[in-house]
């Protein structure tokens, strides 16, 4: 069955209402095999509720959801055999150490003793927990627990890895380490479903994003496509960094044919243009005004621009 799969996740009209509050409304989403999918949305957008429905933790009010080809309402157990999951908030058994934890979960995946031992050793090493593998979990930092969380999600060599806000609550160092760990996972030929409200994180890791706002899926596309589209919408910019930006330089750039406006920010110039093809003229204008160009490049909208554009209002 898995061999025929086109969509690892497929929801049609998925809806969840808590009493009168609609958490997710009519969500139709497809995530293809091998995608590195970023599930974006502000806090309270319905990302975790969607994931909870995909995992079978909560029942949809309406609609259907299939994961790895299995209906999550009726065959969720089969789907979970090939899902690795890191919840946003998760707890461990404080009396257990890392090995005992992974061994317990490994048993639940039906792995035999030798298989568990080999896998646990590998995962503890990749999570950088070798030195603390015998320590009780109550002695672990949040970052260590999070890395163990990733390790338990990889026990079954998942085809689909669902990570819900994996860097939530981590300090900058631990966030960086976690991001590197996730980037490494993306090379494992696994479909990644990364839910986050951190745009930089998603931009670093994912190639496709779905943007959820107030329970509604407002866009799904490749980041490049969205970037181009939003770029057209908000205009084309050229970013120039030069030494000693003077008034003469700004005036010289403004006079170039095709330049619509120039904004100065220290040594940087943000030049709104008709078309990026006028970059050489801008370069020449700066040189003629006795400036020195350090870098000149087209400014493509980043995920933050896209996100703000799509979720505004």
């Amino acid at each position, binding site marked *: 069955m898995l061999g025929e799969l086109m969509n690892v996740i497929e929801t049609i009209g998925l809806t969840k209402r*808590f009493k009168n509050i609609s958490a997710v409304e009519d969500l139709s989403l497809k995530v293809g095999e091998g995608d590195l999918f970023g599930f974006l949305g502000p806090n309270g957008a319905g990302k975790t509720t969607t994931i*909870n429905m995909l*995992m*079978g*933790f*909560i*029942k949809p009010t309406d609609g259907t959801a299939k994961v790895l080809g299995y209906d999550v309402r009726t065959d969720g*157990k*089969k789907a*979970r*055999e090939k*899902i690795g*999951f890191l*919840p946003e*908030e*998760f*707890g*461990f*058994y404080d*009396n257990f150490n890392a090995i005992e934890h992974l061994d*317990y*979960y490994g*048993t*639940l*995946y*039906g792995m035999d003793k030798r298989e568990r031992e080999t896998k646990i050793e590998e995962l503890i090493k990749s999570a950088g927990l070798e030195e603390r593998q015998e320590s009780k979990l109550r002695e672990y930092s949040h970052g260590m627990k999070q890395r163990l*969380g990733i390790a*338990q*999600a990889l026990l079954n060599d998942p085809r689909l890895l669902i990570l819900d806000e994996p860097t939530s609550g981590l300090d900058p160092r631990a966030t960086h380490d976690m991001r590197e760990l996730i980037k490494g996972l993306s090379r494992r030929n696994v479909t990644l479903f990364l839910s986050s409200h951190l745009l930089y994180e998603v931009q670093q890791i994912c190639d496709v994003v779905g943007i959820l706002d107030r329970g509604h899926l407002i866009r799904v596309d490749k980041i490049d496509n969205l970037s181009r589209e939003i770029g057209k919408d908000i205009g084309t910019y050229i970013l120039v960094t030069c030494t000693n930006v003077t008034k003469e330089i700004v005036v010289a750039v403004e006079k170039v044919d095709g330049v619509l406006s120039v904004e100065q920010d220290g040594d940087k110039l943000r030049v709104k243009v008709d078309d990026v093809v006028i970059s050489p003229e801008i370069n020449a204008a700066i040189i003629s005004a006795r400036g020195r160009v350090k870098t000149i490049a087209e400014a493509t909208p980043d995920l933050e621009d896209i996100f703000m554009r799509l979720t505004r209002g």
Partner: protein
Amino acid sequence: MHKILAITKKEFYEHLKSKRLVIFGVIFGAIIPLTMGLTAYYTKGVSPNDVLAGSHGLATFFYVILGIAMAYDVIVREKKEKSLYTLLSKPISREEVVIGKFLGSLLSICAIIIPVLIIGYLIAIAITHNTPSVADIGAVSSYLGIILLGIACYVGLAMAISSAVRSSTTAILSAIGAWFGLGMIYSIVSLALMPQMLTPQVYADPTLMQAKMEEINSLWYVKLAYAMNPGGCMDGAAYSVLGLKSLMGQGLRYPLSTNSMIISLVIFLAVAIGITLGVFRSKDLT
């Protein structure tokens, strides 16, 4: 099946490491053998089985408390501490989780109760110099089976509550409330009938009094009220297999036969586990 065993094993070891099992285990392990030893020493001509029956009244308190204490938070704690999300993300059903947790809790109680009772029984044999017969050993085995069934009912009751509530405090208070509540049903029904059936003449004549009480106990709804209390059924069946056939030492027969009391315990357990499964399956994990 291996998944249920894995959950059972994990629950069992977690309970064994828990303070509450250690505390109750130490108290139970100290009090029961001591009580049995003193009973054997100060009561002339009794058998070890009589000593065991004599200590049951005190021991039954521990049976119920242990059943509730080991199970009241097995589900609600995992919900609150969020470990249930990780657990249920594995390919297991909620039924397997409930059964595994139930067996793990019950086994951890057995690990305390059975050795302590065996030690107490051996002390009773040593002090009374009365070697039990095969029939006596059979009765003690039946006794152990009945109390384990009774404890299983309280574990099931506590788990049903644990699956339905949102905090451990609510769970423990509700479980204790249910314990008392179920225990009071029979007394309330019997007491409600007494003014109608017990006249001053009846009070004056002990034989007539007993006959009237037997009459009350023979009513179907009185039997039902008795059957709904696992504590009463456990006590009644346990005393019966040890040779004490009367209710509360008053020469009054139990409203139910020993077999009916055992069947009532089995039904109670099935209902409690059924409720736990139903609630745990139907509720969203939020």
